[in-house]
């Protein structure tokens, strides 16, 4: 008797639970047992496929900021050029470099100076060249190697990256009414006090074949310069 009452009560409780729409787990029991239709037959959407909820949030397009590459150096130089047989005079120019790796860089330079008088011209009072022919203009394209990279210190709190470098290349020199194929080589020291600025001290030899004073010979034209460049 008691067990019959217990079965009746349990059946009533389960029927009530199945009627509660929020209780998915209990609804599922009936779904599995096949008696679901009688439990929730009043729902008209019952046989429709389950509804997929479309999120109403627009997907954000994330743009990753570009990393700025700062390998190009551009600046001006000022120095002294010793033109073989024609004395030493101030020179000025433009220099540009592209750093390919931490060791190697390409450098291009254009510079100008003015030749003085040869000792023959001084003694004989005869001018070998006109004023425009005395203008010494050169350009070169070189490959450089940072030979001794390091750091330079000013006091206790300020350090600058630096490098001693060697470079060599080819170019042309316009002097005495002719343009000559020129080979150049040299060495320099570069300090970078702040990331965007560099200061160079450089010594370079511009070698070309000349026959201005009669015999054809290789002339060495040494140049020492100070350059200031900006990285960008």
């Amino acid at each position, binding site marked *: 008797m008691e067990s019959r009452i217990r079965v009746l009560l349990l059946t009533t409780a389960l029927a009530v639970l199945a009627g509660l729409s929020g209780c998915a787990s209990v609804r599922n029991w009936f779904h599995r047992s096949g008696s679901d239709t009688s439990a929730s037959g009043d729902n008209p959407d019952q046989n429709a496929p389950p509804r997929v909820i479309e999120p109403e949030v627009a997907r954000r397009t*994330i743009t*990753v*900021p*570009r*990393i*700025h*590459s*700062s*390998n190009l150096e*551009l*600046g*001006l130089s*000022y120095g002294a050029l010793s033109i073989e047989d024609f004395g030493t005079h*101030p020179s*000025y120019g433009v220099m540009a470099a*592209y*750093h*390919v*790796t*931490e060791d*190697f860089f*390409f450098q291009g330079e254009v510079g100008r100076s*003015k030749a003085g008088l040869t000792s023959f011209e001084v003694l004989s009072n005869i001018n070998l060249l006109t004023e425009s022919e005395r203008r010494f203009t050169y350009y070169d*394209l070189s*490959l450089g190697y*940072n030979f001794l*990279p*390091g*750091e330079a210190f000013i006091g206790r709190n300020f*350090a600058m*990256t630096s490098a001693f470098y060697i470079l060599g*290349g*080819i*170019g*042309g020199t316009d002097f005495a009414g*002719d*343009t*000559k*194929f020129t080979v150049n080589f040299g060495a320099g020291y570069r300090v970078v006090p702040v*990331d*965007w*600025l560099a200061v160079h001290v450089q010594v370079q030899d511009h070698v070309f074949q000349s026959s201005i004073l009669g015999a054809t010979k290789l002339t060495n034209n040494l140049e020492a310069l100070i350059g*200031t460049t*900006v*990285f*960008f």
Partner: protein
Amino acid sequence: MIWRARQCALASFLLLAALLTPAVSGAREYLQLFVTEPYLELHTGPGRGYPVFHVVPRDGSVDVLFRRTDWFKVRTEHGVEGWVSQGDLQKTVLADGSAFHFDLGDRAGFTSHHFEMGIFAGAYGGASYVSAYGSVSFNSQLALEGAVGQFLGRYSNGVTGDIGLIHIILPEARWSPFLTIGLGEVHTEPKATLVQTSDRNEPTAYVGGGIRFYLTRRFFLRAEYKAHYIFTTRNQNEEADEWKAGFAFFF
């Protein structure tokens, strides 16, 4: 006159410096990267020999300020600035956990890249020749190339300018041959003391080929031959052979 030129040069340089300074140091949005390795090493300078002075622990982040060659200047959350190598930065991730990919200067870059530049020494029609070129790649095999050069000879000097297409036959190979074809212009200045002719500009067309050899990092050697046909206003067209070899890099 020289003094004025010097003043102009100085003024233009100062202007250039003033214009560029904010571009380098101004406030802008930087890429933030997160450390996944046990730590990330910060060097004092952009080179393998510079000492490590600071480390960022795992899950810490850095802002990438800019790149110089294969080194990246970064700033930590605490404002410490230092240089991180390309190899170390490759092991960091973006904010969403995805890997950080960037352009590496390696053999794969030699096969496929956007730009190339290089310098050459050689001979043009028997004269010494200095030349430089730059190219833009459409894909790993085809590129548009521009070259300028100066030839300095016994009988004449001059300047050349070429523009053309280059087809790389085997872009994956270390020894990578190529073919080229294009148009150009040559400016010739005969030496007045020897030949009584005036300066002239003439259009040219060329066809040629060569080989590229990958050296290391971003560097390769390149040697080539071009057969130039110079279209003159005289009775006969001229031909000039161009041989050159030099260093080049890609980026």
